């Protein structure tokens, strides 16, 4: 390859994504002495992690003394309907408290108990008060802490840079090819190990709590390079997004509102959760609450704008403002609702994907040598449904593990060779939309994709809808080959979106194919035509991989759980 043609950088470890998982991975790789690069599509510190509100789940037992890792493990497995990678769930429950203490030692300031410890709050599906938090802006505290730590330890940051292809030598990942969003110039990033921490896929749905970045890039990069994806049918719809006004539809209303005592009612004033989960009520798991709200609305008992009422106004106004300050401001400024006096209107919004890149529990390594994944981009920990608060702890526990293993691999590896043909191919595909005289507007294509996924691959699913979605996706893929962009390569959002569409179409297809295959209802995957659990499916993961230009779907049995973990699950508390 003509090395001078592209700006080229060389690192031991390349981390794609600068949210909680990517930054935690970077910190760990740096601590191991590796030279580390972090690439992010946005400016540093703007990643989706800042939107996490409620808290970090960790069995610190600061508030409820009886809590311990075993209970956290059991809650996580139950919430995930036992499809979780049990080893990940075990490591996560065991290591989360230490990861939280580390944040504090790096300068994070959590809300405090009267004993001077980190405060913990109740959340859906957690037996004990377990979520370490800072009001309702926990994610911001976490990202700022990690960002400052990483800057101090000295990583190289590539801000507003998008990776468009992983580069491989034989069966090993040796770097990545991308472009600077600002000037549109290409860049080659060589690395001995690559960590993907790019988050989720929610931007393929119209009603979503996710930002523009959530287009499934990392999963698609991994898939394109030959790695396997897993459990893609499990897409979490958060029960409480805003429903009004239209511009904020889908915007997250933190589960902390219910954690702090918020009540859900329908238009008749009934606390309808009594019908669906009388024991846990509002603090049932997200899959159950989302379906319950959806059902209330469908059966004509919804609020004026098609949601449910969520009410915290019975709590003292000052308490609400202190514990839920951003919710207070969000509703006051964007919806003209004072949540200390009146109820909010809320409804389900696409929020999180439990599926992602298939990884080894201990090392976070994917099925492709040299490639690791952590956070939402990776699959396994959450099984069929994620508990609130388990995402931030996931980022910390498995971000660290990914950084550790990537640095270890880099330390014993030689730099690989970059294949100029792979670079040339990626560059050509990236520039093609400029060369088409006539063609599809990427924004129009995106809107149509969102309609398909929202209407046909939503909370409740039906075989014929899913089959129709697959046919529609095929048409969209055809239209995508004709996508055209206007303007120059300098900071051109239409061009950026054109690239992101490739990722969204790929991950949407993976979700739809997996959803068709799983003929049962489990966690976030609800099939109207197969409404019950099927024990055979409870022991299978759907695994997606690339076979030429086709998507291949296979079922892989879940590993047998060791006896001591089975015993933990069998205990009743």
């Amino acid at each position: 390859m003509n090395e001078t043609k592209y700006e080229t950088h060389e690192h031991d470890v390349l981390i794609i994504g600068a949210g909680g998982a990517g930054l935690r991975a970077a910190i760990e790789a740096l601590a191991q002495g590796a030279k580390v690069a972090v690439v992010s599509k946005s400016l540093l510190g703007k990643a989706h992690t800042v939107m996490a509100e409620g808290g970090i789940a960790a069995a610190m037992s600061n508030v409820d003394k009886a809590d311990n890792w075993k209970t956290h493990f059991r809650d996580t497995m139950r919430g995930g309907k036992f499809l979780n990678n049990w080893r990940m769930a075990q490591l996560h429950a065991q290591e989360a408290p230490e990861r939280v203490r580390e944040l504090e030692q790096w300068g994070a300031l959590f809300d405090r108990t009267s004993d001077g410890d980190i405060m913990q709050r109740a959340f859906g599906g957690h037996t004990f008060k377990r979520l370490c938090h800072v009001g309702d802006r926990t994610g911001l505290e976490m990202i700022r802490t990690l960002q400052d730590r990483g800057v101090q330890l000295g990583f190289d940051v590539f801000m507003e840079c998008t990776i468009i292809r992983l580069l491989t030598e034989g069966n090993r990942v040796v770097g990545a090819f991308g472009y600077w969003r600002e000037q549109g110039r290409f860049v080659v990033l060589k690395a001995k190990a690559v960590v993907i921490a790019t988050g989720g896929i929610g931007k393929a749905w119209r009603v979503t709590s996710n930002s523009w970045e959530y287009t499934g890039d990392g999963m698609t990069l991994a898939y394109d390079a030959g790695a396997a994806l897993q459990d893609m049918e499990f897409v979490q719809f958060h029960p409480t997004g805003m429903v009004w006004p239209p511009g904020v539809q889908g915007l997250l209303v933190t589960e902390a509102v219910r954690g702090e005592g918020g009540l859900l009612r329908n238009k008749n004033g009934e606390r309808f959760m009594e019908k669906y989960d009388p024991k846990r009520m509002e603090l049932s798991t997200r899959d159950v609450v989302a379906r319950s709200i959806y059902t209330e609305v469908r059966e004509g008992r919804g609020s004026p704008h098609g949601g449910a009422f969520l009410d915290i106004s019975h709590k003292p106004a000052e308490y609400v403002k202190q514990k839920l300050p951003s919710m207070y401001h969000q509703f006051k400024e964007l919806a003209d609702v004072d949540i200390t006096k009146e109820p909010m209107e809320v409804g389900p919004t696409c929020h999180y994907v439990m599926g992602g890149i298939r990884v080894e529990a201990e090392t976070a390594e994917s099925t492709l040598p040299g490639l690791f994944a952590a956070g939402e981009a990776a699959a396994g920990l959450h099984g069929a449904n994620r508990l609130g608060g388990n995402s931030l702890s996931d980022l910390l526990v498995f971000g660290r593990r990914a950084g550790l293993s990537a640095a270890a691999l880099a330390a014993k590896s030689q730099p690989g060779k970059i294949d100029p043909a792979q670079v040339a191919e990626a560059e050509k595909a990236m520039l093609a939309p400029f060369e088409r005289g006539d063609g599809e507007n990427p924004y129009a294509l995106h809107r149509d994709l969102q309609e398909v996924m929202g209407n046909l691959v939503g909370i409740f699913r039906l075989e014929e809808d899913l089959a129709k979605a697959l046919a529609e996706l095929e048409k969209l893929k055809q239209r995508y080959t004709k996508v055209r962009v206007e303007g120059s390569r300098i900071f051109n959002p239409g061009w950026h979106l054109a690239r992101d569409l490739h990722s969204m179409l790929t991950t949407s297809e993976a979700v739809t194919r997996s959803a068709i295959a799983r003929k049962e209802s489990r966690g976030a995957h609800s099939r109207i035509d197969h409404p019950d659990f099927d024990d055979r499916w409870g022991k299978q993961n759907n695994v997606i991989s690339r076979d030429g230009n086709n998507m291949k779907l296979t079922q892989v049995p879940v590993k047998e759980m060791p006896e001591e973990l089975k015993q933990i699950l069998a205990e009743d508390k």
Partner: protein
Amino acid sequence: MAEAVLEVFRGNKDGGSPVQYTVPITPGMVVLDALHHIQGHQAPDLAVRWNCKAGKCGSCSAEVNGRPRLTCKTRMDSLPADKPITVAPMKSFPVIKDLVTDVSWNYRVNKKIPPFTPKPGVPWKMYQEDVDRVQEFRKCIECFLCQNVCHVVRDHDKKEEFGGPRFFVRVASLEMHPLDGESRTALLKNELGIGYCNITKCCTEVCPEDIHITDNAIIPLKERVVDEFYDPVLKLVRMIRKAPAR
């Protein structure tokens, strides 16, 4: 359907001019919605930064009708309907394209600040009343509107000698952390040029997080600098002890 007219700056580092767009108004619409509508239907290459669209990430800063704002929190119905709404990039930073500016200076300033450094052997206990005031500073979403509006940056372009309100807030969050053992007063005086601030409170006024930047961060920090470097009694004590001021 009701419509609004926006005049959005289009251009790059070499210059540019406002371009008029008409968009349909929906209830509760914010300026960022209008910009997205323009991107989606009229100008796909309109450069805008945004992420969360919920006032939590601080990406979508711009000057709306001349006032520095987060466009995701600026309601269209809060602006006069009888004239076009102007949307321009933050004036204090070089334009890259349209509403996107080069804010890299802020990241360079941040690197100068020594991180949280716990006092040795400290017990990890803190009480809510001790962290309350620091938590106010930790609310900062780094939208850089305070940096943009500060006249030391905006009118006098003292970027090389001055840290700006955002980083005084950051230093305050470290200096007032109950367990921090580092001193950053010399940095404040010398490299961050806190003396340039003459407490006009413009930063506080534009802060979307309602952080009392001037009263709670800058003034207490100025007092620390004065105590350490300009207090005549302490100066005398130091001279006697021959302990050089840091």
